[in-house]
């Protein structure tokens, strides 16, 4: 690795550690730890939300997918962006009004029973673990490629860094790492897109025309259907993307970090512009990589196409731009996994320990100890799992996380807020049915089974869809409905309280 490259890495690591040091001086209460004391401003939280969206999967994954499969790769950009509306319109505000740190808080505001809170916490932890393993495995493989160090060392470096940010700086440090990374990522993406456009003489029409002949797919490259040929599977994947994002714990947690609903909304406006512009630019990243690097070289570096953006940076801007983009990719991974550790730790320390085991009777000091211990536990468990999962298909883990988020979290959220007769049994049934259905269907799906032995198990998959959201999301809704019919009657007095709180934000 060149001197410039080392400089960028050291600069980014140094800057994030400095920010963590500053944040650590303030982080001495549970509220500071989980939500930065609700003290972020609209634009700060907006950039941080954008940062949470712009994960390595977005930057490296989508650029690679568009480079290799044309329009079909762009499906992801559309799905992640529109998911914003689900978050904003359906989830964000009631969540803020009813909860304090976690999703389980919100559901427990209506069904204050250990088993309901416990089930919500378990689904959060399951999502966090799968998503985290996916990020860490991807990170390990990527850093191995970028820096030429061993997989296990790469995982340990990322794992140690994320633990340091969260342990010492809590949400404040995690947010600032996210803000730094989001700004750098936008700068990098704009620069590369500008260079790509320059190469096409700033003629977007001309770029599309050239892309017709630039790849082996010919004209089909510009049309959908290069990669996704099964209609039902494509629709199912799009459902998981749009509904799953709204159930991801680290995204939901962001809405607790500002002081009021108005600030939360303004942060979403900032985030939507940043994220939307970024996703439009993924077209230039993808087309550029296809035209100026070529699919053979991209696949040779990484079969899933994850190296498309770094290779494009090298082709356009030489070692300097490659180093910058690699360092930014590294920062992107760090920021997202730190957010995941924090949301996993909140489910462990706040929900399971603080509210269920100690029944809410915990001192501030005990809460901090629990939060920090849980952060270490979540980090260590995911590092160990990631070390063992080196050869697992990352896309499968991500699709599983999204599917569980959409199936286990979204039905219970919607019922809790909008359905008067929804009962405790229904809440429990909705979470468990969604979670179990998503898990079982993924285990039986083509993600793990292939007749030709190319997957983990050899044999015909029992469930045909790669992404089971089309079945598992309705299953979650159905479970909640049946549970409500068979269980005890709903507590209407409690619903009146939840209804009033969710609608007008009375606390």
């Amino acid at each position, binding site marked *: 690795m060149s001197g410039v490259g080392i400089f960028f890495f050291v600069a980014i690591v140094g800057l994030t550690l400095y920010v963590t040091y500053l944040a650590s001086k303030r982080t001495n209460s549970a509220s500071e730890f989980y939500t930065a004391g609700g003290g972020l401003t609209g634009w700060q939280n907006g950039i941080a939300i954008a940062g949470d969206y712009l994960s390595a999967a977005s930057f490296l994954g989508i650029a690679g997918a568009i480079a290799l499969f044309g329009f079909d790769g762009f499906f992801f950009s559309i799905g992640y962006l529109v998911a914003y509306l689900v978050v*904003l319109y359906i989830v964000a505000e009631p969540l803020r009004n009813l909860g304090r740190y976690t999703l389980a808080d919100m559901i427990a505001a209506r069904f204050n029973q250990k088993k309901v809170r416990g089930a919500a916490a378990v689904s959060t932890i399951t999502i966090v673990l799968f998503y985290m393993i996916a990020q860490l495995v991807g990170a390990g493989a990527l850093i191995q490629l970028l820096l030429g160090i061993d997989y296990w060392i790469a995982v340990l470096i990322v794992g140690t860094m994320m633990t340091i940010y969260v342990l010492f700086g809590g949400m404040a440090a995690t947010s600032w790492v996210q803000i730094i990374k989001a700004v750098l990522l936008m700068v990098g993406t704009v620069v590369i897109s500008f260079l790509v456009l320059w190469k096409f003489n700033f003629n977007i029409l001309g770029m*599309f025309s050239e892309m017709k002949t630039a790849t082996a797919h010919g004209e089909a490259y510009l049309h959908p259907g290069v990669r996704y040929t099964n209609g039902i599977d494509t*629709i199912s994947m799009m*459902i998981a993307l749009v509904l799953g994002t709204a159930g991801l714990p680290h995204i939901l947690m962001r809405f607790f970090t500002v002081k009021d609903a108005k600030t939360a909304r303004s942060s979403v406006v900032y985030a939507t512009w940043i994220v939307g512009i970024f996703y439009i630019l993924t077209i230039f990243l993808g087309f550029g990589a296809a035209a100026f690097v070529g699919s053979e070289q991209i696949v040779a570096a990484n079969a899933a196409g994850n190296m498309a953006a770094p290779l494009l940076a090298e082709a356009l801007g030489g070692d300097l731009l490659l180093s910058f983009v690699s360092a930014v990719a590294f920062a992107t991974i760090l920021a997202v996994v730190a957010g995941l550790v924090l949301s996993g730790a909140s489910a462990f320390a706040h929900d399971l320990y603080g*509210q269920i085991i100690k029944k809410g009777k915990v001192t501030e000091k005990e809460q901090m100890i629990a939060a920090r211990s849980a952060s270490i536990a979540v980090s260590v468990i995911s590092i160990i799992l990631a070390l063992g999962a080196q050869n697992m298909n990352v896309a499968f883990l991500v699709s599983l996380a999204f599917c569980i988020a959409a199936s286990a979290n979204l039905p219970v959220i919607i019922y809790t807020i909008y359905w008067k007769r929804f009962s405790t049994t229904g809440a429990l049934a909705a979470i468990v049915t969604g979670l179990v259905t998503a898990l079982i269907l993924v285990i039986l799906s083509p993600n793990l089974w292939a007749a030709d032995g190319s997957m983990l198990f050899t044999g015909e998959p029992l469930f045909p869809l790669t992404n089971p959201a089309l079945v598992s999301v309705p299953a979650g809704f159905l479970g909640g409905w049946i549970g409500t019919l068979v269980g005890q009657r709903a507590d209407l007095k409690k619903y009146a309280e939840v209804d009033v709180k969710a609608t007008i934000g009375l606390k």
Partner: protein
Amino acid sequence: MEPIKESGYTREYPYEEISEQNNFKSLKKRKNKFIVGISIFFLTAYLALPILTSYTTILNTPVIGDISLVWIYSFLLFIMTWTLCMIYVKKANGFDKEAEKIKEDAVGEVTR
């Protein structure tokens, strides 16, 4: 089961009474109508994309030069997201004012 009591977190308001008030009911009705209506709209517009691309070739029609309808449709989904996002903020800030009024009345009653 005991409700969770934490200082400054759970306060008792006459929730049932508020939920029966006309101004609350009217606010809730308009809020839900807005949210449900727009949500159905954008989810339909969104899911129409994979349905159209999977079962028809209509979106392959070129519109501007070699840019086909599917790219235009996708771009419109981006415009839709930005627009609906700003509409939400505007509308919700309006709802806030009414919510504030209901809240003030309720808090006033409790402290009286």
